[in-house]
């Protein structure tokens, strides 16, 4: 009768396999093929270089604002690597590496951030949702996707990405809670990159970890070293397998760091120190993974150089194609009247015609 402690059905773990000094926990190391590991590496590098290129294009005024991913390559790719094509993926706005892995083209990003809504097109057969700008709101969509998967009797899963800041939004709460109640096959991947624009993680919530928020919903939660692609992958694949088996959702917190600006409109020197960034530079995911691959004899410096060249060309080609495309799209402002409804209602057709008749700006 007196004061008793409430028993929680599980605890929240932290997982780390390959640390920043290159130490490896052999017991936890996942058994992945060389091909798969090299593919992961390739996309990490592609993600990084593409990001750097976009930053330059933005500075040159050739595209608009976007959110760089530098430092978060492992957190993104380790997660989506656990998915298959028929699974669903819902990004926030800082998941270009994950989206590239899942089949979207660099060209589409360039169009999108170049101000062309055509960049939001999702190619047939690819199950990624478009970028979601209002923070945290996309998390619910992955619960609905998961529910639909159940209704269709499939064993796919839906994985959704969001940031540390997003966990403060009501939609995060409603999403994980509903997923718990309906046991939807949803993987909630929080990329805790330590900042929501200028707000540090410590100011976002008094909770020690974001993973422990899972306890509020009776749902498993796990925290990873989000710059360790092996740890990220292991957490993701466990969650995916549980979801496929009908055991419901998981909340994963990947502890990582945004090495670059929030978006190209941001000046991080206003709110964080160089020293802090330097610490995280050392924990950076790509070099750590390269060392691992080299140790395993899967990668050499020469191979990296060759790969870098290959990627450089691919990116250059994508930029050329995208800029050509923008040129041809430039005068198609009238397409703003498309795709609002399946059929354009009369009043909108009238507005469209007025536009066509009078528009002199293009």
């Amino acid at each position, binding site marked *: 009768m007196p004061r008793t402690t409430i028993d929680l059905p599980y605890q929240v773990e932290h997982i780390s396999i390959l640390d920043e000094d290159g130490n490896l926990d052999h017991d936890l190391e996942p058994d992945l093929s060389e091909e798969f590991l090299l593919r992961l590496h390739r996309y990490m590098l592609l993600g990084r270089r593409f990001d750097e290129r976009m930053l330059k294009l933005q500075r040159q005024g050739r595209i608009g604002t976007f959110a760089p991913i530098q430092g978060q390559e492992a957190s993104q790719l380790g997660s989506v690597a656990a998915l298959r094509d028929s699974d669903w993926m819902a990004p926030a706005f800082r998941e270009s590496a994950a989206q590239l892995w899942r089949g979207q083209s660099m060209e589409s990003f360039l169009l999108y951030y170049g101000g062309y809504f*055509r960049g939001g097109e999702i190619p047939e057969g690819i199950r990624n*949702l478009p970028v979601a700008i209002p923070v945290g709101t996309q998390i619910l969509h992955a619960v*609905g*996707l998961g*529910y*639909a998967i159940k209704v269709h009797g499939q064993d796919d899963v839906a994985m959704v990405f969001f940031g540390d800041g997003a966990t403060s939004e009501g939609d995060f709460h409603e999403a994980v809670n509903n997923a718990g109640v309906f046991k939807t096959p949803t993987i909630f991947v929080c990329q805790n990159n330590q900042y929501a624009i200028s707000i540090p993680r410590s100011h976002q919530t008094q909770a020690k970890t974001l993973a422990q928020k899972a306890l509020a919903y009776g749902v498993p939660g796990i925290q990873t070293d989000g710059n360790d692609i092996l740890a990220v992958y292991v957490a993701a694949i466990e969650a995916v397998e549980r979801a496929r088996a009908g055991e419901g959702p998981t909340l994963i917190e990947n502890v990582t760091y945004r090495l670059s600006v929030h978006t190209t409109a941001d000046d991080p020197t206003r709110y964080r120190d160089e020293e802090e960034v330097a610490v995280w530079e050392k924990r950076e995911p790509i070099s750590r993974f390269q060392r691992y691959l080299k140790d395993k004899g899967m990668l050499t410096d020469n191979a990296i150089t060759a790969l870098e060249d290959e990627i450089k060309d691919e990116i250059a080609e994508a930029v050329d194609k995208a800029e050509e495309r923008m040129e041809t799209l430039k005068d198609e402002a009238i397409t703003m009247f498309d795709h609002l409804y*399946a059929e354009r209602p009369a009043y909108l057709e009238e507005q469209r015609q007025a536009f066509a008749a009078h528009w002199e700006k293009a």
Partner: protein
Amino acid sequence: MAKMTMVQALNLALHQEMEKDDAILVLGEDVAVDGGVFRVTEGLLEKYGELRVIDTPLAESAIIGTAVGMAIHGLKPVCEIQFSGFSYLAFHQLESHAARMRWRSRGAYHVPLVLRTPYGGGVRALEHHSESRESYYAHTPGLKMVIPSSPRNARALLVSAMRDPDPVVFFEPKSIYRAFREEVPDEEEALPIGSAQVVREGNDLTLISYGAMMQPTLTAADRLAEEDGIQADVIDLLSISPLDEETCVNSVRKTGRVVIVNEAPRSFGPAAEVMARLIEKSFWYLEAPIRRVTGYDVIIPLFAYEQAYLPDAQRILRVARETLDVVS
């Protein structure tokens, strides 16, 4: 053919469409075991099971947000928000996602979602249970906004809403949920979204309204005929957006005089848009200023005074007579 209340007619629409189309599911607070607080979803759980008839946790944003995900993956969610006054908790999911997913993905995904919700005053309810804020939704590109006015058109419009490939906000006039019965055919019936109906014909005056306000509007029209020998064209908009301006314009070109009735607050309300369209399309036919009879620009009072707030036949009649008295 049976005489039904609006609640029964809506329930019929749900039963028949769920029977025909496996993709339809119903979700909301208390919609399954309890059959909905107004019983619109009664019997669905027993027939279609708990995977398709879903009692959700108490979270409106989640109802709409999960429905967006469901819709993207091939389902047709019919969401109930218990009262329209609580739909604001989901406003961002509607505005920012349901209304935009087709546009954002350039047609790759679309969101055939229906948001059903009771709206309007007149049932002696608590605060937040009597509002009429259809303008919020009508002003939002990407949504459609439908309000039936009788059992038969409620059923036929809900059927269309469920078949619509795009998100439809469907306001149910709760004060006439059970106020009267109407013959509703057993066989399927659908009414096109975006079409108004001329429900009474006349050449002297145009009365435009919709939803629960059709009742006092029709009473006023009857009294005009009986007491003044005035024959009014009465238009039931049925859809607020898309607005059937053609039907309105045609009538006003004939009558030259028009009164618009809505129970929403006056300023920036639905009547203003109808006025705007008529000015744009039938200005030269007007023989008197367009008038509107609306709720006042205050919060609808608790029920002791709600009848004083709501437009009634008397107010409509007065304004109609003033409009008729104008010498042009």
